[in-house]
């Protein structure tokens, strides 16, 4: 099978802290892949290495076979890697619409000259992408708030916009960092539905970080487990559920059902 992402022996250090310690795994094209582990295990750091915000001290990260280590973050985005952040990182003063349009930055072309003149191509382009953005709005059911500044939205909706912005990019690989944090069950179900839909309809590969084990076990094709920066497990949900080390560090005895 095609590996869209390969992580080989990645280590990352902050002063004395080993945030990642010799981590290796691979993600198949078109699957839902989950990263789990206790707090501070290095999950977000892992995503940061993939999107280029952190630079591993060691190892190799290959995207579609190409080594992307040392590549600037914005270039990786151009390759088709999108990301929704754990701590919401929306542009608070902008409307939902503009946030989503920013998601399409790399798909658009107009520059400072043509944009400023707003004639012909540049204008057409704006309209074309507006249409595409509206699709995302429909998909995530954000219709009513499209002109609202995201800063005033409640947490849960902001999370949805955050995911929407990554989605608008039409990426090959989408990294979701705890997209369901701060949601109640019904809302989680909805988010799960969105994730499944985009995975299926848009054929995206999804990397998911989530603490709700129910969600993780149900949705994932494969799971990697981190603890103190070390990878302590890798496999299908079934395998993970029965991995004793994982149970001890993360799941807890009674949870295994």
């Amino acid at each position, binding site marked *: 099978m095609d590996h869209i992402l390969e992580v080989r022996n990645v280590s990352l250090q902050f002063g004395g802290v080993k945030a990642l310690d010799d981590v290796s795994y691979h993600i198949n094209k078109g699957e839902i892949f989950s990263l789990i582990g206790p707090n501070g295990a290095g999950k977000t750091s892992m995503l940061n290495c993939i999107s280029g915000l952190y630079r591993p001290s060691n190892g190799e990260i290959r995207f579609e076979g190409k080594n992307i280590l040392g590549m600037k973050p914005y270039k990786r*985005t151009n390759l088709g890697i999108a*990301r929704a952040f754990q701590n919401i990182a929306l542009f608070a003063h902008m409307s939902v619409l503009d946030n989503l*349009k*920013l998601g399409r930055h790399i798909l658009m072309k107009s520059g400072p000259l043509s944009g400023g003149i707003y004639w012909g191509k*540049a204008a057409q382009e704006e*309209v074309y992408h*507006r249409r595409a953005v509206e699709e995302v709005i429909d998909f995530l059911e954000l219709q009513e708030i499209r002109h609202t500044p995201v800063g005033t939205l409640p947490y849960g909706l902001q999370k949805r916009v955050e995911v929407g912005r990554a989605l608008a990019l039409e990426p090959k690989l989408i990294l979701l960092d705890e997209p369901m944090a701060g949601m109640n069950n019904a809302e989680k179900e909805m988010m799960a539905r969105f994730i499944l839909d985009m995975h299926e309809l848009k054929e995206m590969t999804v990397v998911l970080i989530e603490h709700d084990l129910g969600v993780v076990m149900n949705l994932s094709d494969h799971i990697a487990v981190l603890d103190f920066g070390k990878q302590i497990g890798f496999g299908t949900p079934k395998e993970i559920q029965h991995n004793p080390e994982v149970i001890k560090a993360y799941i807890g005895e009674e949870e295994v059902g």
Partner: protein
Amino acid sequence: MRNPFVAECGHYKTSYRKDMELYRIPRVKLRAIALLGLFFLYPLFASNYAVGLATLCCIAAVGAIGLNILTGFTGQISIGVGAFLGVGGYTSAILTSTLGLSFWVALPLAGIITAVVGGLFGIPSLRLKGLYLAIATLAAQVIILFVISRWTGLTGGTSGMVLQRPSIGGFNFMSATSYYYLCFIILVLTTFYALNLFRTRTGRAFLAVRDRDVAAQIMGINLFSYKVMAFAISSFFVGIAGALLAHYTMIVSPELYSIEVSIEYLAMILVGGLGSVFGAILGAVFITLLPVGLGFLMEFVSSVLPNMHHLLSAFKELVFGLVIILFLIFEPGGLAHIWNNIKNYFKLWPFSH
């Protein structure tokens, strides 16, 4: 049928194109045109003095829009506008007075060269943030002025250079009115450019860089090139303003471009409203006319209290500070915000529903 665009009561947009127009409501468009017309006819009614003031306002507005692109929209505080005005002014002075080029060639070149210099001084923005960057731009101000006043061979040193008003064919822009029109048209073009810029890709990227640069990066925005670009675009307009000002006063001299000028421009965009094109214009008008207004006030005061004369200029300084402070305290959104409130009021008038 679903119609999501319930933006303004009574006006339904039926296509994205319509929803995205600069003036989404016909009435607003009409008002904009009326306003333009009004300013076009203005010199017919106003005295030369008033036209001269309006010209200064237009020039300041071009510069303020430029600064707002950098500081208001992209979030990079610049205390170096004064010097960039100087670069624009001197470029045009050298090109026209020394090299004998036409003003019409020199003007855009002044913009471009200032853009290049601005971009150059924008390079530190790669690593510097916030106030650290602000001080770096202050350094740019000090260093540029130092170079200007020392490079006597090119710039005439501290005594400056003399310029001419532009002319086209046989027509000379010597009169107050003609130069006003020139500046006004350039201001209108600048305004449209800026408004358009911020509803398209590049402008949005600037805003993203201002609000959250890490997230902007992950959207695929090359921070460095956009920051430098913001410096360059901003400086372009500041340079144009500098050139216009130079040909208006017909002199360039280092003293014209001091730190106080930089601060005045910052005051313009703050009083006007950060990140608002229209606010920049209002702010420019306000800050340009404030000393004039205070002058009138002083004339009045001194006619009542003739012996106060000595205190007057100091008093003026005091009042200037006070006005700025009151503004920030009572209308942090700036003039643009006040303007919007007035507009909203009239939109619903006479039926507030």
